[in-house]
């Protein structure tokens, strides 16, 4: 793993721990290999938007978010509240990019996402259509 990937993994673990503390739900990583997969994009890349990098191209941002959402939903790296983790991270990233969004709408989308029918590219497209 690269240093960025390790940092992103720790960041996600912290965000999840925070959710567990706030909601009084089960804490802990269920599968560390899945979590490594979430932060490792093809070609050795990583979710740099999580670390605050301002990607010049929105397409790259939505591509990272699509990857993050798909592999977190499909692999469920944490013991509980994986969808809540996705929503919290999205709120932070979208705020960081000063983008206009409706968190309720995103929450509904995440809740109903079926990874058997929608892949990371579909998720990226949804974001490019729904986020200003």
């Amino acid at each position: 793993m690269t240093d960025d990937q390790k940092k992103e993994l720790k960041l996600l673990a912290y965000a999840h721990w925070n959710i567990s503390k706030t909601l009084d739900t089960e804490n802990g990583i269920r599968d560390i290999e899945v979590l490594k997969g979430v932060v490792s994009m093809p070609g050795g890349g990583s979710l740099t938007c999580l670390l605050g990098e301002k990607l010049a191209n929105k397409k790259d941002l939505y591509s990272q978010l699509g990857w993050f959402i798909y592999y977190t939903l499909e692999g469920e790296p944490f013991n509980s509240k994986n969808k809540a983790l996705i929503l919290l991270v999205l709120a932070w990233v979208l705020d960081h990019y000063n983008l206009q969004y409706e968190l309720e709408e995103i929450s509904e989308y995440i809740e109903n996402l079926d990874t058997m029918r929608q892949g990371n590219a579909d998720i990226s497209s949804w974001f490019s259509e729904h986020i200003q």
Partner: protein
Amino acid sequence: MKRKIIRVGSSRGILIPREVTRAMGWEFGTITDLEVDEEKNQLTLETAEVDIPDELEKDQLKQFEELAKQHKKLLEALDD
């Protein structure tokens, strides 16, 4: 709550009642902080703070904490 100091090998110890460990959410292996205030002749035992890795940005972690509180209802409503 009165507790008697007992011998544990060559050390001294105090048994913590189950209702206290339950209330504090302490399990075997939980790390605690023990602080002595000699002036007040007082001892404080509390859950140790989680160590934050140095490479993470404290501001960002704080923002996660605030967002989790702000959107608690939405986060709670989502399935596992």
